[in-house]
Protein backbone atom coordinates (compact mmCIF):
# COMPACT_ATOMS: atom_id res chain seq x y z
CA UNK A 1 0.00 0.00 0.00
CA UNK A 2 2.79 2.42 0.94
CA UNK A 3 4.39 1.34 -2.32
CA UNK A 4 1.16 2.11 -4.12
CA UNK A 5 1.15 5.58 -2.57
CA UNK A 6 4.66 6.16 -3.92
CA UNK A 7 3.78 4.90 -7.37
CA UNK A 8 0.67 7.10 -7.46
CA UNK A 9 2.69 10.13 -6.42
CA UNK A 10 5.16 9.43 -9.22
CA UNK A 11 2.47 8.84 -11.83
CA UNK A 12 0.80 12.10 -10.84
CA UNK A 13 3.75 13.89 -12.36
CA UNK A 14 4.82 11.66 -15.22
CA UNK A 15 6.84 14.19 -17.14
CA UNK A 16 8.67 15.45 -14.09
CA UNK A 17 9.38 11.93 -12.88
CA UNK A 18 10.79 11.06 -16.28
CA UNK A 19 13.02 14.11 -16.38
CA UNK A 20 14.18 13.33 -12.87
CA UNK A 21 15.11 9.80 -13.89
CA UNK A 22 16.88 10.78 -17.07
CA UNK A 23 20.26 11.18 -15.40
CA UNK A 24 20.05 7.66 -14.05
CA UNK A 25 18.58 6.28 -17.27
CA UNK A 26 21.32 7.74 -19.47
CA UNK A 27 24.09 6.78 -17.07
CA UNK A 28 22.98 3.19 -16.69
CA UNK A 29 22.18 2.84 -20.40
CA UNK A 30 25.64 4.11 -21.36
CA UNK A 31 27.40 1.77 -18.99
CA UNK A 32 25.32 -1.27 -19.93
CA UNK A 33 25.71 -0.76 -23.67
CA UNK A 34 29.45 -0.04 -23.57
CA UNK A 35 29.99 -3.02 -21.28
CA UNK A 36 27.98 -5.27 -23.59
CA UNK A 37 29.94 -4.12 -26.63
CA UNK A 38 33.28 -4.32 -24.85
CA UNK A 39 32.52 -7.72 -23.41
CA UNK A 40 31.41 -8.92 -26.83
CA UNK A 41 34.65 -7.69 -28.36
CA UNK A 42 36.90 -9.26 -25.78
CA UNK A 43 35.00 -12.56 -25.83
CA UNK A 44 35.41 -12.64 -29.58
CA UNK A 45 39.10 -11.81 -29.45
CA UNK A 46 39.76 -14.39 -26.80
CA UNK A 47 37.93 -16.97 -28.89
CA UNK A 48 39.90 -16.09 -31.98
CA UNK A 49 43.20 -16.13 -30.20
CA UNK A 50 42.57 -19.42 -28.52
CA UNK A 51 41.54 -20.84 -31.91
CA UNK A 52 45.07 -20.04 -33.06
CA UNK A 53 46.33 -22.73 -30.77
CA UNK A 54 47.27 -22.14 -27.21
CA UNK A 55 50.98 -22.88 -26.99
CA UNK A 56 52.02 -20.61 -29.78
CA UNK A 57 54.85 -18.07 -29.90
CA UNK A 58 54.76 -15.70 -32.84
CA UNK A 59 57.92 -13.97 -34.02
CA UNK A 60 58.05 -10.97 -36.35
CA UNK A 61 61.09 -9.25 -37.77
CA UNK A 62 61.42 -5.77 -36.32
CA UNK A 63 59.28 -3.38 -38.33
CA UNK A 64 61.11 -0.75 -40.31
CA UNK A 65 60.69 2.72 -38.83
CA UNK A 66 59.33 4.02 -42.11
CA UNK A 67 56.45 1.57 -42.06
CA UNK A 68 55.92 -2.03 -42.85
CA UNK A 69 58.76 -3.73 -44.67
CA UNK A 70 57.56 -5.13 -47.94
CA UNK A 71 58.44 -8.68 -48.74
CA UNK A 72 60.54 -9.41 -51.78
CA UNK A 73 62.54 -6.23 -51.53
CA UNK A 74 65.36 -7.99 -49.74
CA UNK A 75 67.44 -5.35 -48.10
CA UNK A 76 65.42 -4.53 -44.95
CA UNK A 77 64.74 -8.10 -44.00
CA UNK A 78 66.18 -9.46 -40.80
CA UNK A 79 64.49 -12.82 -40.37
CA UNK A 80 64.92 -15.72 -42.73
CA UNK A 81 63.70 -19.24 -43.25
CA UNK A 82 67.14 -20.33 -42.05
CA UNK A 83 66.31 -18.82 -38.65
CA UNK A 84 63.12 -20.84 -38.53
CA UNK A 85 64.91 -24.02 -39.48
CA UNK A 86 67.62 -23.33 -36.93
CA UNK A 87 65.06 -22.95 -34.16
CA UNK A 88 63.48 -26.22 -35.09
CA UNK A 89 66.83 -27.97 -35.34
CA UNK A 90 68.51 -26.61 -32.21
CA UNK A 91 65.60 -26.16 -29.80
CA UNK A 92 63.89 -29.46 -30.52
CA UNK A 93 63.60 -30.17 -26.78
CA UNK A 94 61.23 -27.20 -26.39
CA UNK A 95 59.68 -26.69 -29.80
CA UNK A 96 57.41 -29.14 -31.55
CA UNK A 97 57.15 -27.32 -34.86
CA UNK A 98 58.01 -24.06 -36.57
CA UNK A 99 56.06 -22.60 -39.43
CA UNK A 100 57.66 -19.66 -41.19
CA UNK A 101 55.24 -17.48 -43.15
CA UNK A 102 55.96 -15.64 -46.37
CA UNK A 103 53.19 -13.40 -47.65
CA UNK A 104 53.07 -12.49 -51.31
CA UNK A 105 50.40 -10.60 -53.18
CA UNK A 106 49.73 -12.29 -56.51
CA UNK A 107 47.39 -12.43 -59.46
CA UNK A 108 45.60 -15.79 -59.50
CA UNK A 109 44.46 -16.93 -62.93
CA UNK A 110 42.30 -19.88 -63.80
CA UNK A 111 41.09 -20.11 -67.43
CA UNK A 112 39.32 -16.80 -67.95
CA UNK A 113 38.85 -16.00 -64.26
CA UNK A 114 41.08 -13.65 -62.36
CA UNK A 115 41.49 -13.02 -58.63
CA UNK A 116 43.85 -10.74 -56.75
CA UNK A 117 44.92 -12.93 -53.90
CA UNK A 118 47.16 -13.22 -50.93
CA UNK A 119 49.54 -16.17 -51.10
CA UNK A 120 50.97 -17.44 -47.85
CA UNK A 121 54.00 -19.66 -47.86
CA UNK A 122 53.79 -21.83 -44.73
CA UNK A 123 55.16 -25.12 -43.51
CA UNK A 124 53.58 -28.54 -43.91
CA UNK A 125 52.56 -28.68 -40.23
CA UNK A 126 50.67 -25.37 -40.38
CA UNK A 127 47.20 -27.06 -40.14
CA UNK A 128 48.25 -28.63 -36.86
CA UNK A 129 49.87 -25.51 -35.43
CA UNK A 130 46.91 -23.24 -36.18
CA UNK A 131 44.02 -25.70 -35.78
CA UNK A 132 43.02 -25.26 -39.37
CA UNK A 133 42.16 -28.28 -41.51
CA UNK A 134 41.30 -28.94 -45.13
CA UNK A 135 37.72 -29.59 -46.14
CA UNK A 136 38.67 -31.50 -49.29
CA UNK A 137 41.88 -32.87 -50.79
CA UNK A 138 44.93 -32.66 -48.53
CA UNK A 139 47.53 -30.24 -47.23
CA UNK A 140 51.06 -30.48 -48.71
CA UNK A 141 53.56 -32.83 -47.11
CA UNK A 142 57.11 -32.59 -45.90
CA UNK A 143 58.69 -33.95 -49.06
CA UNK A 144 56.79 -31.39 -51.16
CA UNK A 145 58.10 -28.65 -48.91
CA UNK A 146 61.66 -29.96 -49.22
CA UNK A 147 61.45 -30.19 -52.99
CA UNK A 148 59.80 -26.77 -53.43
CA UNK A 149 56.86 -28.48 -55.14
CA UNK A 150 54.47 -26.20 -56.98
CA UNK A 151 51.38 -27.25 -55.09
CA UNK A 152 48.80 -25.06 -53.39
CA UNK A 153 45.82 -25.26 -51.06
CA UNK A 154 42.97 -22.77 -51.60
CA UNK A 155 41.06 -20.80 -49.03
CA UNK A 156 37.30 -21.02 -49.41
CA UNK A 157 36.81 -17.48 -50.76
CA UNK A 158 39.41 -18.02 -53.48
CA UNK A 159 37.88 -21.38 -54.35
CA UNK A 160 34.37 -19.90 -54.67
CA UNK A 161 35.57 -16.99 -56.77
CA UNK A 162 37.65 -19.01 -59.18
CA UNK A 163 35.71 -22.25 -59.34
CA UNK A 164 32.18 -21.42 -58.23
CA UNK A 165 30.29 -23.47 -55.68
CA UNK A 166 30.11 -26.77 -57.54
CA UNK A 167 33.40 -27.47 -59.29
CA UNK A 168 36.03 -29.39 -57.34
CA UNK A 169 39.35 -27.62 -57.76
CA UNK A 170 41.46 -30.51 -56.47
CA UNK A 171 43.74 -31.71 -59.24
CA UNK A 172 43.35 -28.64 -61.45
CA UNK A 173 46.13 -26.24 -62.41
CA UNK A 174 46.06 -22.65 -61.10
CA UNK A 175 48.43 -19.95 -62.28
CA UNK A 176 49.91 -17.89 -59.48
CA UNK A 177 51.58 -14.90 -61.07
CA UNK A 178 53.22 -16.54 -64.08
CA UNK A 179 53.77 -19.97 -62.50
CA UNK A 180 51.45 -22.96 -62.81
CA UNK A 181 50.59 -24.65 -59.50
CA UNK A 182 48.67 -27.84 -58.87
CA UNK A 183 45.70 -27.43 -56.49
CA UNK A 184 45.80 -30.27 -53.95
CA UNK A 185 43.22 -29.18 -51.37
CA UNK A 186 40.71 -26.65 -50.07
CA UNK A 187 40.84 -25.24 -46.53
CA UNK A 188 37.76 -25.39 -44.36
CA UNK A 189 36.04 -21.98 -44.16
CA UNK A 190 37.07 -19.84 -41.18
CA UNK A 191 35.09 -16.66 -41.76
CA UNK A 192 36.13 -13.10 -41.06
CA UNK A 193 38.19 -11.99 -38.09
CA UNK A 194 36.60 -9.63 -35.64
CA UNK A 195 38.38 -6.84 -37.48
CA UNK A 196 36.60 -7.72 -40.71
CA UNK A 197 39.47 -9.38 -42.55
CA UNK A 198 38.40 -12.39 -44.60
CA UNK A 199 40.65 -15.24 -43.45
CA UNK A 200 39.50 -17.46 -46.29
CA UNK A 201 40.80 -15.11 -48.98
CA UNK A 202 44.13 -16.93 -49.11
CA UNK A 203 46.18 -19.48 -51.03
CA UNK A 204 48.76 -21.58 -49.21
CA UNK A 205 51.92 -23.06 -50.64
CA UNK A 206 55.05 -24.48 -49.04
CA UNK A 207 57.17 -21.58 -47.78
CA UNK A 208 60.12 -22.97 -49.70
CA UNK A 209 58.17 -22.69 -52.95
CA UNK A 210 56.88 -19.24 -52.07
CA UNK A 211 60.37 -17.99 -51.32
CA UNK A 212 62.12 -19.47 -54.33
CA UNK A 213 59.41 -19.34 -57.03
CA UNK A 214 57.17 -16.40 -56.11
CA UNK A 215 59.41 -14.11 -54.14
CA UNK A 216 62.69 -15.06 -55.81
CA UNK A 217 64.68 -13.84 -52.87
CA UNK A 218 68.24 -14.93 -52.21
CA UNK A 219 67.83 -14.04 -48.54
CA UNK A 220 64.95 -16.44 -47.88
CA UNK A 221 63.30 -13.60 -45.93
CA UNK A 222 60.11 -14.43 -44.09
CA UNK A 223 57.30 -12.23 -42.73
CA UNK A 224 56.88 -14.05 -39.46
CA UNK A 225 56.99 -17.47 -37.90
CA UNK A 226 54.68 -19.44 -35.68
CA UNK A 227 56.56 -21.52 -33.14
CA UNK A 228 54.61 -24.28 -31.46
CA UNK A 229 55.87 -25.28 -28.02
CA UNK A 230 55.80 -28.78 -26.65
CA UNK A 231 54.45 -27.49 -23.37
CA UNK A 232 53.21 -24.10 -22.20
CA UNK A 233 55.08 -24.67 -18.93
CA UNK A 234 58.33 -24.01 -20.79
CA UNK A 235 57.07 -20.74 -22.23
CA UNK A 236 59.56 -18.49 -20.47
CA UNK A 237 62.52 -20.76 -21.09
CA UNK A 238 61.52 -21.21 -24.73
CA UNK A 239 61.24 -17.49 -25.31
CA UNK A 240 64.60 -16.94 -23.66
CA UNK A 241 66.32 -19.57 -25.77
CA UNK A 242 64.67 -18.47 -29.01
CA UNK A 243 65.74 -14.91 -28.30
CA UNK A 244 69.31 -15.98 -27.53
CA UNK A 245 69.49 -18.11 -30.66
CA UNK A 246 68.12 -15.38 -32.93
CA UNK A 247 70.44 -12.74 -31.41
CA UNK A 248 73.39 -15.02 -31.97
CA UNK A 249 72.35 -15.78 -35.55
CA UNK A 250 71.76 -12.09 -36.27
CA UNK A 251 75.15 -11.27 -34.73
CA UNK A 252 73.73 -8.66 -32.39
CA UNK A 253 76.14 -7.11 -29.92
CA UNK A 254 75.09 -6.83 -26.28
CA UNK A 255 74.26 -3.15 -26.58
CA UNK A 256 71.96 -3.70 -29.58
CA UNK A 257 68.24 -4.20 -29.24
CA UNK A 258 66.48 -7.24 -30.62
CA UNK A 259 65.71 -6.94 -34.33
CA UNK A 260 62.60 -9.06 -33.87
CA UNK A 261 59.44 -9.16 -31.75
CA UNK A 262 58.01 -12.14 -29.97
CA UNK A 263 54.40 -12.46 -28.88
CA UNK A 264 52.69 -15.42 -27.33
CA UNK A 265 48.99 -16.04 -27.01
CA UNK A 266 49.01 -15.81 -23.21
CA UNK A 267 50.59 -12.40 -23.50
CA UNK A 268 47.93 -11.26 -25.97
CA UNK A 269 45.19 -12.63 -23.74
CA UNK A 270 46.68 -10.77 -20.81
CA UNK A 271 46.80 -7.56 -22.82
CA UNK A 272 43.15 -7.98 -23.73
CA UNK A 273 42.38 -8.79 -20.12
CA UNK A 274 44.10 -5.68 -18.85
CA UNK A 275 42.46 -3.48 -21.50
CA UNK A 276 39.09 -4.94 -20.52
CA UNK A 277 39.92 -4.40 -16.87
CA UNK A 278 40.87 -0.79 -17.49
CA UNK A 279 37.68 -0.26 -19.44
CA UNK A 280 35.66 -1.73 -16.60
CA UNK A 281 37.32 0.63 -14.12
CA UNK A 282 36.66 3.64 -16.35
CA UNK A 283 33.05 2.61 -16.89
CA UNK A 284 32.57 2.12 -13.20
CA UNK A 285 33.78 5.67 -12.70
CA UNK A 286 31.38 6.91 -15.39
CA UNK A 287 28.58 4.94 -13.77
CA UNK A 288 29.41 6.33 -10.36
CA UNK A 289 29.41 9.90 -11.66
CA UNK A 290 26.16 9.51 -13.57
CA UNK A 291 24.50 7.85 -10.61
CA UNK A 292 25.72 10.69 -8.41
CA UNK A 293 24.31 13.28 -10.81
CA UNK A 294 21.08 11.31 -11.17
CA UNK A 295 20.89 10.91 -7.41
CA UNK A 296 21.26 14.63 -6.82
CA UNK A 297 18.48 15.17 -9.36
CA UNK A 298 16.28 12.82 -7.38
CA UNK A 299 17.15 14.52 -4.11
CA UNK A 300 16.27 17.88 -5.62
CA UNK A 301 12.92 16.71 -6.91
CA UNK A 302 12.11 14.98 -3.63
CA UNK A 303 12.80 18.19 -1.71
CA UNK A 304 10.38 19.99 -4.03
CA UNK A 305 7.89 17.19 -3.60
CA UNK A 306 8.04 17.38 0.19
CA UNK A 307 7.31 21.11 0.12
CA UNK A 308 4.54 20.66 -2.44
CA UNK A 309 2.85 17.95 -0.47
CA UNK A 310 3.31 19.45 2.95
CA UNK A 311 -0.47 19.45 3.56
CA UNK A 312 -0.61 15.79 2.68
CA UNK A 313 2.21 15.13 5.14
CA UNK A 314 0.31 17.09 7.83
CA UNK A 315 -2.90 15.19 7.17
CA UNK A 316 -1.14 11.82 7.25
CA UNK A 317 0.49 12.73 10.54
CA UNK A 318 -2.86 13.93 11.92
CA UNK A 319 -4.49 10.59 11.19
CA UNK A 320 -1.65 8.64 12.73
CA UNK A 321 1.36 8.37 10.41
CA UNK A 322 4.47 8.08 12.58
CA UNK A 323 7.64 9.95 11.60
CA UNK A 324 9.05 6.59 10.48
CA UNK A 325 6.06 5.98 8.21
CA UNK A 326 6.55 9.38 6.56
CA UNK A 327 10.28 8.74 6.26
CA UNK A 328 9.68 5.44 4.50
CA UNK A 329 7.01 6.84 2.24
CA UNK A 330 9.43 9.35 0.75
CA UNK A 331 12.45 7.06 0.70
CA UNK A 332 10.37 4.46 -1.08
CA UNK A 333 9.18 7.03 -3.55
CA UNK A 334 12.77 8.00 -4.34
CA UNK A 335 13.71 4.34 -4.61
CA UNK A 336 10.85 3.58 -6.98
CA UNK A 337 11.91 6.53 -9.13
CA UNK A 338 15.55 5.52 -9.28
CA UNK A 339 14.91 1.79 -9.65
CA UNK A 340 12.48 2.35 -12.50
CA UNK A 341 15.07 4.71 -13.97
CA UNK A 342 17.68 1.97 -13.58
CA UNK A 343 15.42 -0.62 -15.19
CA UNK A 344 14.64 1.67 -18.11
CA UNK A 345 18.36 2.38 -18.36
CA UNK A 346 19.22 -1.32 -18.49
CA UNK A 347 16.58 -1.90 -21.17
CA UNK A 348 17.76 1.11 -23.18
CA UNK A 349 21.38 0.04 -22.82
CA UNK A 350 20.66 -3.50 -24.02
CA UNK A 351 18.64 -2.06 -26.90
CA UNK A 352 21.38 0.37 -27.92
CA UNK A 353 24.03 -2.34 -27.66
CA UNK A 354 22.05 -4.69 -29.88
CA UNK A 355 21.34 -1.94 -32.38
CA UNK A 356 25.05 -1.14 -32.60
CA UNK A 357 25.89 -4.84 -32.77
CA UNK A 358 23.39 -5.26 -35.58
CA UNK A 359 24.75 -2.29 -37.55
CA UNK A 360 28.42 -3.05 -37.01
CA UNK A 361 28.18 -6.86 -37.05
CA UNK A 362 29.72 -6.83 -33.65
CA UNK A 363 29.01 -9.52 -31.09
CA UNK A 364 27.10 -8.34 -28.01
CA UNK A 365 27.41 -9.97 -24.63
CA UNK A 366 25.07 -8.59 -21.95
CA UNK A 367 26.16 -9.91 -18.60
CA UNK A 368 23.34 -10.56 -16.19
CA UNK A 369 25.60 -9.50 -13.37
CA UNK A 370 26.11 -5.99 -14.77
CA UNK A 371 22.36 -5.60 -15.31
CA UNK A 372 21.70 -6.82 -11.78
CA UNK A 373 24.32 -4.49 -10.32
CA UNK A 374 22.83 -1.53 -12.19
CA UNK A 375 19.51 -2.40 -10.68
CA UNK A 376 20.85 -2.73 -7.17
CA UNK A 377 22.90 0.44 -7.42
CA UNK A 378 20.12 2.55 -8.83
CA UNK A 379 17.77 1.59 -6.03
CA UNK A 380 20.55 2.21 -3.53
CA UNK A 381 21.03 5.67 -5.04
CA UNK A 382 17.32 6.32 -4.54
CA UNK A 383 17.58 5.27 -0.93
CA UNK A 384 20.72 7.32 -0.31
CA UNK A 385 19.60 10.53 -1.98
CA UNK A 386 15.98 10.13 -0.92
CA UNK A 387 16.96 9.91 2.72
CA UNK A 388 17.61 13.59 3.37
CA UNK A 389 14.33 14.90 1.89
CA UNK A 390 12.44 12.07 3.59
CA UNK A 391 14.14 12.82 6.89
CA UNK A 392 13.16 16.48 6.59
CA UNK A 393 9.57 15.47 5.92
CA UNK A 394 9.50 13.16 8.92
CA UNK A 395 10.79 15.91 11.22
CA UNK A 396 7.97 18.31 10.34
CA UNK A 397 5.37 19.21 12.93
CA UNK A 398 1.85 18.13 12.01
CA UNK A 399 0.35 21.49 12.88
CA UNK A 400 2.95 23.45 10.90
CA UNK A 401 2.18 21.30 7.87
CA UNK A 402 -1.57 21.70 8.19
CA UNK A 403 -1.32 25.49 8.59
CA UNK A 404 1.24 25.87 5.79
CA UNK A 405 0.12 28.30 3.11
Amino acid at each position, binding site marked *: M*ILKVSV*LAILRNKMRSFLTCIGIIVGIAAVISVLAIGKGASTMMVKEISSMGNNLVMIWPERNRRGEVRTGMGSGQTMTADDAEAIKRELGHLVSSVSPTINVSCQLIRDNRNWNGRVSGVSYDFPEIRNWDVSSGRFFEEHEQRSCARVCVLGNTVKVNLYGDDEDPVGTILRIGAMPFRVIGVLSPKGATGWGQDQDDIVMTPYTTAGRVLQRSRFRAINMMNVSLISMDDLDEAKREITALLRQRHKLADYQDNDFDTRDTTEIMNTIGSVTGLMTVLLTAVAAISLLVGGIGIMNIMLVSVTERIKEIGL*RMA*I*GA*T*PAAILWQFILEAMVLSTVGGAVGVAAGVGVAHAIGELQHWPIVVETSSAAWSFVFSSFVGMFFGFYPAYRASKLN*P*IDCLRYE
Partner: protein
Amino acid sequence: MGHLIEIRDMYKIYAQGEEPVHALDGVSVTVDTGEFVAIMGASGSGKSTLLNILGCLDTPTRGSYLLDGIEVARRSRRELASIRNKKLGFVFQNFNLLPRMSAVEQVELPDLYLGRLSRHARRARAKELLARVGLGSRGSHSPAELSGGQQQRVAIARALMNEPPVLFADEPTGNLDTKSSVEIMELFTQLSAEGITIVMVTHEDDIAAYARRHLVMKDGKLVKDVTTP
Protein backbone atom coordinates in the same frame (compact mmCIF):
# COMPACT_ATOMS: atom_id res chain seq x y z
CA MET B 1 -13.78 8.47 38.05
CA GLY B 2 -11.44 10.56 35.84
CA HIS B 3 -12.41 12.74 32.95
CA LEU B 4 -11.83 11.86 29.31
CA ILE B 5 -10.01 15.15 28.77
CA GLU B 6 -8.47 17.16 31.57
CA ILE B 7 -6.20 20.15 30.96
CA ARG B 8 -4.77 22.26 33.70
CA ASP B 9 -3.10 25.66 33.51
CA MET B 10 -2.39 25.39 29.81
CA TYR B 11 -0.19 28.05 28.17
CA LYS B 12 0.80 28.42 24.54
CA ILE B 13 3.15 31.34 23.98
CA TYR B 14 4.47 32.29 20.56
CA ALA B 15 7.75 34.12 21.13
CA GLN B 16 8.55 35.33 17.64
CA GLY B 17 7.92 39.01 16.90
CA GLU B 18 8.67 41.90 19.25
CA GLU B 19 6.07 40.89 21.83
CA PRO B 20 5.23 37.29 22.79
CA VAL B 21 1.67 36.22 21.91
CA HIS B 22 -0.22 34.34 24.59
CA ALA B 23 -2.45 32.23 22.34
CA LEU B 24 -3.44 30.24 25.44
CA ASP B 25 -3.16 32.04 28.72
CA GLY B 26 -3.79 29.59 31.54
CA VAL B 27 -6.67 27.44 30.36
CA SER B 28 -8.11 24.67 32.54
CA VAL B 29 -11.03 22.57 31.40
CA THR B 30 -12.39 19.03 31.57
CA VAL B 31 -14.53 17.14 29.09
CA ASP B 32 -16.32 13.89 29.87
CA THR B 33 -17.15 10.98 27.64
CA GLY B 34 -20.15 11.56 25.39
CA GLU B 35 -20.15 15.34 25.63
CA PHE B 36 -20.76 17.52 22.57
CA VAL B 37 -18.76 20.71 23.11
CA ALA B 38 -18.57 23.85 20.97
CA ILE B 39 -15.63 26.24 21.44
CA MET B 40 -16.56 29.78 20.49
CA GLY B 41 -14.98 33.21 20.54
CA ALA B 42 -13.66 36.03 18.41
CA SER B 43 -11.06 35.51 15.71
CA GLY B 44 -7.61 35.16 17.22
CA SER B 45 -8.94 34.27 20.65
CA GLY B 46 -7.10 30.93 20.65
CA LYS B 47 -9.85 28.45 19.70
CA SER B 48 -7.82 26.60 17.08
CA THR B 49 -4.73 26.64 19.29
CA LEU B 50 -6.68 24.95 22.08
CA LEU B 51 -8.25 22.40 19.75
CA ASN B 52 -4.89 21.51 18.16
CA ILE B 53 -3.37 20.90 21.57
CA LEU B 54 -6.36 18.82 22.65
CA GLY B 55 -5.95 16.87 19.40
CA CYS B 56 -2.23 16.22 20.09
CA LEU B 57 -1.30 18.03 16.88
CA ASP B 58 0.50 20.73 18.82
CA THR B 59 2.28 20.84 22.16
CA PRO B 60 1.68 23.44 24.87
CA THR B 61 4.37 25.73 26.21
CA ARG B 62 3.30 24.86 29.72
CA GLY B 63 0.54 22.94 31.49
CA SER B 64 -0.66 19.39 31.81
CA TYR B 65 -3.00 17.40 29.62
CA LEU B 66 -4.48 14.09 30.72
CA LEU B 67 -6.23 12.19 27.95
CA ASP B 68 -8.10 9.19 29.22
CA GLY B 69 -6.03 9.39 32.40
CA ILE B 70 -2.60 9.47 30.72
CA GLU B 71 -0.33 12.48 30.49
CA VAL B 72 0.22 13.39 26.84
CA ALA B 73 1.81 16.84 27.06
CA ARG B 74 5.33 15.37 27.06
CA ARG B 75 5.20 12.43 24.71
CA SER B 76 7.44 11.51 21.80
CA ARG B 77 6.29 12.23 18.29
CA ARG B 78 5.85 8.55 17.62
CA GLU B 79 3.67 8.04 20.69
CA LEU B 80 1.56 11.08 19.82
CA ALA B 81 1.09 9.70 16.29
CA SER B 82 -0.14 6.45 17.76
CA ILE B 83 -2.54 8.27 20.13
CA ARG B 84 -3.96 10.34 17.26
CA ASN B 85 -4.30 7.21 15.20
CA LYS B 86 -6.22 5.18 17.75
CA LYS B 87 -8.05 7.66 19.95
CA LEU B 88 -8.65 10.85 18.03
CA GLY B 89 -10.50 11.73 14.86
CA PHE B 90 -10.10 15.02 12.98
CA VAL B 91 -12.36 17.04 10.74
CA PHE B 92 -10.94 20.23 9.23
CA GLN B 93 -12.47 23.31 7.74
CA ASN B 94 -10.83 22.63 4.35
CA PHE B 95 -11.60 18.86 4.43
CA ASN B 96 -7.94 17.91 3.84
CA LEU B 97 -8.63 15.02 1.50
CA LEU B 98 -5.69 13.72 -0.53
CA PRO B 99 -5.96 14.60 -4.22
CA ARG B 100 -6.58 11.85 -6.80
CA MET B 101 -7.44 9.21 -4.29
CA SER B 102 -10.85 7.59 -4.23
CA ALA B 103 -13.21 8.19 -1.29
CA VAL B 104 -12.87 4.57 -0.13
CA GLU B 105 -9.09 4.80 -0.11
CA GLN B 106 -9.22 8.05 1.87
CA VAL B 107 -11.39 6.41 4.47
CA GLU B 108 -9.08 3.39 4.66
CA LEU B 109 -5.99 5.49 5.41
CA PRO B 110 -6.10 5.53 9.24
CA ASP B 111 -6.18 1.74 9.36
CA LEU B 112 -3.21 1.51 7.01
CA TYR B 113 -1.17 3.13 9.74
CA LEU B 114 -2.77 0.97 12.42
CA GLY B 115 -2.95 -2.30 10.50
CA ARG B 116 -5.78 -3.64 12.61
CA LEU B 117 -7.90 -5.03 9.78
CA SER B 118 -7.25 -7.35 6.89
CA ARG B 119 -7.26 -5.82 3.45
CA HIS B 120 -10.72 -7.19 2.82
CA ALA B 121 -12.20 -6.14 6.17
CA ARG B 122 -10.69 -2.68 5.81
CA ARG B 123 -12.35 -2.17 2.45
CA ALA B 124 -15.67 -3.43 3.83
CA ARG B 125 -15.49 -1.12 6.84
CA ALA B 126 -14.61 1.89 4.67
CA LYS B 127 -17.64 1.21 2.47
CA GLU B 128 -19.86 0.77 5.49
CA LEU B 129 -18.68 4.11 6.93
CA LEU B 130 -19.30 5.86 3.62
CA ALA B 131 -22.80 4.42 3.60
CA ARG B 132 -23.28 5.67 7.15
CA VAL B 133 -22.42 9.26 6.14
CA GLY B 134 -24.76 8.92 3.14
CA LEU B 135 -22.15 8.36 0.42
CA GLY B 136 -22.66 4.66 -0.21
CA SER B 137 -22.61 5.10 -3.96
CA ARG B 138 -19.68 7.50 -4.18
CA GLY B 139 -16.86 5.27 -2.96
CA SER B 140 -14.89 5.39 -6.18
CA HIS B 141 -15.06 9.17 -6.61
CA SER B 142 -12.03 11.36 -6.12
CA PRO B 143 -12.33 14.64 -4.16
CA ALA B 144 -12.47 16.64 -7.39
CA GLU B 145 -15.66 14.77 -8.29
CA LEU B 146 -17.41 15.53 -4.99
CA SER B 147 -19.17 18.63 -3.64
CA GLY B 148 -17.89 20.39 -0.54
CA GLY B 149 -20.51 18.81 1.69
CA GLN B 150 -19.74 15.36 0.27
CA GLN B 151 -16.00 15.90 0.77
CA GLN B 152 -16.58 16.82 4.38
CA ARG B 153 -18.64 13.67 4.85
CA VAL B 154 -15.78 11.58 3.41
CA ALA B 155 -13.50 13.33 5.93
CA ILE B 156 -15.89 12.41 8.77
CA ALA B 157 -15.99 8.78 7.62
CA ARG B 158 -12.19 8.80 7.57
CA ALA B 159 -12.08 10.24 11.09
CA LEU B 160 -14.28 7.38 12.30
CA MET B 161 -12.24 4.59 10.68
CA ASN B 162 -10.37 3.47 13.80
CA GLU B 163 -13.39 3.98 16.08
CA PRO B 164 -11.87 6.84 18.09
CA PRO B 165 -13.66 7.88 21.31
CA VAL B 166 -13.16 11.57 20.49
CA LEU B 167 -13.78 13.62 17.37
CA PHE B 168 -12.23 17.08 16.93
CA ALA B 169 -13.61 19.50 14.36
CA ASP B 170 -12.22 22.96 13.55
CA GLU B 171 -14.97 24.98 11.86
CA PRO B 172 -16.26 21.90 10.00
CA THR B 173 -18.94 23.96 8.26
CA GLY B 174 -16.79 27.02 7.58
CA ASN B 175 -16.51 26.28 3.87
CA LEU B 176 -20.07 24.98 3.37
CA ASP B 177 -23.44 26.47 2.45
CA THR B 178 -26.36 26.38 4.88
CA LYS B 179 -27.91 23.19 3.52
CA SER B 180 -24.68 21.19 3.67
CA SER B 181 -23.90 22.67 7.08
CA VAL B 182 -27.18 21.43 8.45
CA GLU B 183 -26.51 17.94 7.01
CA ILE B 184 -23.06 17.82 8.62
CA MET B 185 -24.41 18.99 11.98
CA GLU B 186 -27.18 16.41 11.88
CA LEU B 187 -24.51 13.79 11.29
CA PHE B 188 -22.59 15.13 14.31
CA THR B 189 -25.71 15.00 16.43
CA GLN B 190 -26.26 11.40 15.41
CA LEU B 191 -22.63 10.48 16.21
CA SER B 192 -22.95 12.21 19.56
CA ALA B 193 -26.07 10.22 20.28
CA GLU B 194 -24.08 7.08 19.55
CA GLY B 195 -21.71 8.05 22.32
CA ILE B 196 -18.79 9.69 20.52
CA THR B 197 -17.32 12.71 22.29
CA ILE B 198 -17.21 15.73 19.99
CA VAL B 199 -15.22 18.93 20.48
CA MET B 200 -15.92 21.47 17.75
CA VAL B 201 -14.69 25.01 17.08
CA THR B 202 -17.14 27.39 15.46
CA HIS B 203 -17.97 31.05 15.48
CA GLU B 204 -21.54 30.60 14.18
CA ASP B 205 -24.26 30.57 16.84
CA ASP B 206 -26.67 28.36 14.89
CA ILE B 207 -23.93 25.75 14.42
CA ALA B 208 -22.95 25.98 18.10
CA ALA B 209 -26.62 25.43 18.95
CA TYR B 210 -26.25 21.75 18.04
CA ALA B 211 -23.81 21.32 20.96
CA ARG B 212 -25.01 20.94 24.55
CA ARG B 213 -22.01 22.65 26.10
CA HIS B 214 -20.47 25.97 25.02
CA LEU B 215 -16.95 27.18 25.90
CA VAL B 216 -16.18 30.79 25.05
CA MET B 217 -12.58 32.02 24.60
CA LYS B 218 -11.26 35.55 24.76
CA ASP B 219 -7.58 36.54 24.41
CA GLY B 220 -6.37 33.05 25.21
CA LYS B 221 -8.55 32.69 28.30
CA LEU B 222 -11.67 30.61 28.88
CA VAL B 223 -14.31 33.16 29.84
CA LYS B 224 -17.55 31.17 29.75
CA ASP B 225 -18.53 27.52 30.16
CA VAL B 226 -22.27 26.80 29.93
CA THR B 227 -24.13 23.55 29.53
CA THR B 228 -27.74 23.50 28.36
CA PRO B 229 -29.61 20.76 30.16
